[in-house]
């Protein structure tokens, strides 16, 4: 187990380096710079700014300096938010995104497993059809369609919940974003659970349990569900990353100060360091969550033979 963890973490370093390098040069290829304005600055001022942010040096030098700084844990100053460093900005946005993502993940797991189990138990009867049709609709409907509709009905029309805003994470402000964010994941998990549960339920050991006279609910909960959840566990890695790194759409629609918006804003403003910082944080989270999932997987299913480093996919 320790070997797996160490191997994976080491494999993560070149992946992160590749991500950073690609993003760094892609950012610099782009036309325009962070300090371009409508009004032209005097050459002296431009020179000063360039010096302050080390933009006057050659690209390879800047790249080397950036990498050196990142290794020491400093993501550099933001180019747009004059008084803030990227570390501070991410420190502000990440907790918000993590909080929303955590609740959404929990909701998706609970509802998804329940829905999938119901569908599998009533396979090919009407509860199954209803559940799976709902799931397809859930997967197919983009969150920027669902979010406005939910706001329109629950917040504007009936005024049960606030339209948006954060208020330091008060629960009423959490409900709509969390629900919107988790819907496609609920659907995906339900489909996974249904498929794998059906397969498990047809296995001999389940028939044995049934023949022994174990109550159907006990067969489901104690015998079938645990092995059926294996595919869900491997789905949790990518799902957790998708949920917790902040969704631009959700943040924009509900007016939430999370991390997702930094990326698009940063890219539009050519805020090089901010974009790189967000990309790095997402990359690290991706590696960590996938590692966590693999460890969890081996714990739940000891039969799993660890593959080599190839598991580093997202």
């Amino acid at each position: 187990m320790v070997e797996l963890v160490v191997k994976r973490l080491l494999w993560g370093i070149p992946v992160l380096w590749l991500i950073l390098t690609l993003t760094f040069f892609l950012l610099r290829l782009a036309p325009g710079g962070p300090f371009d304005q409508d009004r032209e600055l005097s050459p002296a001022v431009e020179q000063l700014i360039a010096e302050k942010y080390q933009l006057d040096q050659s690209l390879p030098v800047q790249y080397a300096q950036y990498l050196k700084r990142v290794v020491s844990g400093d993501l550099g100053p933001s180019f747009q938010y004059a008084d803030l460093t990227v570390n501070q900005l991410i420190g502000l946005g990440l907790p918000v995104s993590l909080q929303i993502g955590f609740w959404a993940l929990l909701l998706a797991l609970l509802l998804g497993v329940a829905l999938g189990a119901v569908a599998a138990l009533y396979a090919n009867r009407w509860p199954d059809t209803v559940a799976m049709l709902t799931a397809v609709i859930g997967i197919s409907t983009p969150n920027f369609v669902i979010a406005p509709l939910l706001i329109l009905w629950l917040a504007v029309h009936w005024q049960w919940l606030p339209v948006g805003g954060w208020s330091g994470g008060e629960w009423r402000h959490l409900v709509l974003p969390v629900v919107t964010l988790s819907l496609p994941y609920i659907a995906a998990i339900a489909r996974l659970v249904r498929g794998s549960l059906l397969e498990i339920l047809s296995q001999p050991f389940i028939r044995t349990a049934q023949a022994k006279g174990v109550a159907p609910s006990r067969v489901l909960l104690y015998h079938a569900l645990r092995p059926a959840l294996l595919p869900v566990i491997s789905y949790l890695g990518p799902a957790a990353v998708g949920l917790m790194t902040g969704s631009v759409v959700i943040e924009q629609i509900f007016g939430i100060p999370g991390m997702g918006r930094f990326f698009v804003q940063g890219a539009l403003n050519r805020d090089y360091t901010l974009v790189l910082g967000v990309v790095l944080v997402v990359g690290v989270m991706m590696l960590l969550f996938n590692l966590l999932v693999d460890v969890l997987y081996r714990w739940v299913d000891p039969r799993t033979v660890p593959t080599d480093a190839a598991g580093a996919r997202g």
Partner: protein
Amino acid sequence: MKLKLGLALLVLVLLMIGVGPWFGTQDPETIHWDHMAAAPDATFWLGTDVMGRDVYMRTLLGGQVSLLVGLLASLVSVAIGVCYGMVAGFIGGKTDALMMRLVDVLYALPFLFLVILLMVFFGQHLWLLFIAIGCYLWLDMARIVRGQTLALKAQPFVEAAGAMGQSPMTILRRQILPNLKGVVVVYATLTIPQVIMIESFLSFLGLGLQDPMTSWGALVNEGASHMELAPWSLWFPALFLSMTLVGFNLLGDGLRDRWDPTSQQRASDS
């Protein structure tokens, strides 16, 4: 059942998009100053948006763009994925391991980020949109095709073709490719809704198409920002977009249940 429902939805949407504009009486770009955010009536069948433009025509024409992007980008991703996967699976050995490791690494990249960066930096050209999305989505296809090719390669008829002196290129083209058809069609069908979704997402962020060209994503974005004034300018594009995505997903699922031998759900699904 899935198949039929999916097909029915898609035929309906296609009919609306293909034939609907012929019946439209309004120009999609004309601004009607006296009919801003007007509710649906006899002249403006689905109402007008806050700028006084006909929602009916804009939804249908936006749909043409969304579908076009969906089909073309899927084509790009299918082309890349099939070639890559087939070559990796057919050559096998070290080359295969290396090529698949590259796919693993690419999976680890925050690709949607890169697509967003591309769109921000190099302008919102339609062709760039196809390529960016296509390049993002080929990985799954490559994996699936590689797996199938590996299995096919071990079959006697491929061996026979080799023994008859067919060159590797010919074997790939004449023996392997035709047998991949089912899987490729299934996963291409499932790629199209993904593309449409990504394009809508980019348009929603304002990174997709530029006015006056429009797509469902852009329309939903406009509608969402004025939903208190003109809710119908949100409802109808949203409805069409969802119907199309549901249709493609149902169709793809149905086809997979029927054709894909590796699908586990096959035996259990109706």
